[in-house]
């Protein structure tokens, strides 16, 4: 852990292989920094992300989960992100309904050309999670180290 006592959130970013993961690569090759708290998991499409993955991340102690996919209309599989959009809208709404801070989850559409956007989004998201603090409501106490 870093030397100072500053809160370092755990953030999981699911990125679709065709747009957002490539956008993250572009952010990298353009040296556009964002906090190391963000760890990316590559998925073929945003529609591959099961709500169970997101809840599991929270259960295991993640403080924020972000899902990035191709812009609506640009999905490599033509329709995947439209399904993802409905699923995530409902899931997030349910979490909000249950009293989970609604800033902890986010969906962003980032294309392969949007390295700058990727970096901006991640900076912004990390800042939001830092302001929300540690995730207590969704964590499983047994999973704390």
């Amino acid at each position, binding site marked *: 852990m870093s030397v100072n006592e500053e809160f370092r959130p755990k953030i999981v970013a699911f990125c679709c292989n065709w747009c957002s993961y490539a956008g993250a690569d572009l952010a990298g090759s353009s040296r556009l920094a964002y906090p190391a708290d963000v760890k990316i998991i590559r998925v073929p499409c945003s529609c591959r992300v*099961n*709500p*169970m993955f997101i*809840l*599991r991340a*929270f*259960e295991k102690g993640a403080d924020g989960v972000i899902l990035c996919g191709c812009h*609506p*209309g640009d999905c490599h599989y033509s*329709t995947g992100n*439209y*399904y993802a*959009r*409905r*699923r*995530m*809208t*409902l*899931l*997030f*709404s*349910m*979490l*909000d*309904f*249950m*009293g*989970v*801070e*609604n*800033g902890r*989850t*986010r*969906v962003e559409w980032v294309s392969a050309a949007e390295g700058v956007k990727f970096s901006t989004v991640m900076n912004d998201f990390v800042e939001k999670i830092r302001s929300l603090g540690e995730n207590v*409501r*969704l*964590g*499983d*106490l*047994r999973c704390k180290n």
Partner: protein
Amino acid sequence: MQELKARALELLKNGTVQRVLGWRIGENTYDPEPAFFDSEEAMKDFVYNNFCAANLSKYMIEACKLEGKTLVCLKPCDSYSFNQLLSEHRIDREKAYIIGVGCKGKLSIEKVSQAGVKGILSVTDTDPLQVTTLYGDTTVAYKDAMLSRCHVCKGKDHVVYDELIGESEDTVDADRFAEVAAIEAMSPEEKFAFFQAELSKCIRCNACRNVCPACSCRKCVFDSNKFDSTQKANVDSFEEKMFHIIRAFHVAGRCTDCGECSRVCPQGIPLHLFNRKFIKDINNLYGEYQAGADVEAKGPLTSFTTEDAEPSVVSQGGIR
């Protein structure tokens, strides 16, 4: 009831159906239970009264695996569940003979006790209910003993049936989404406290799952190792929430809002709130949708429009 029983017996005798799926009389008026009847002898125990709340459509999954046709008694709201199962190929229309039975709202013995009646010995299913208790006789108004779900009744029409027996009544006298809206209006802390209190009562008995017509997976994800989510010992943590969120999510767009989950929960957790929240959101965002109303309809989670709302609507004031 007599007409229904006579007709069922007739169909059983003339070989139209091999068995009848209905309710068997319990020890008391108020505890009939779902049962199959395959003979005239067995039919002696057949009952249909105002306490016959159970939705029988889910039993048709097993019944359809058996030889011959099964006569199934469906109330108007149960017929939606039947249709939903039909649209998911879980049951075979050809193997069912549906008698749409009349329903004027179903009663719950819990509601009678909640109305302040103690030491119940017997009860009628009449309007008003005549209750004999250890402390004497009393009455309870029909409406006061009705299941919560009947106050937001889907209507008196069956969406699928072969014949109809008995009169039905639309018993709606409350706003279906009022409870959900009340929670939506709470602060995050209040919401969290509310669900924490409710869900910590969960003993993971799986009654909600077992009764739910939409939760009809051959094997539940929580019982398989596919997601490494096998049921563990109950602990006071996120796990119940995870279970109930996922359960609600899995039935989202498929749940007909039959309310069986809340009816059977031994801990009295208002589980229908999860389903109804999804239904409310779906109606608001993607247009009015009633699962089971149309067998051919594409569900809201297996369809989309290019103009759908972004998930950020949730953080921008929520879906109301």
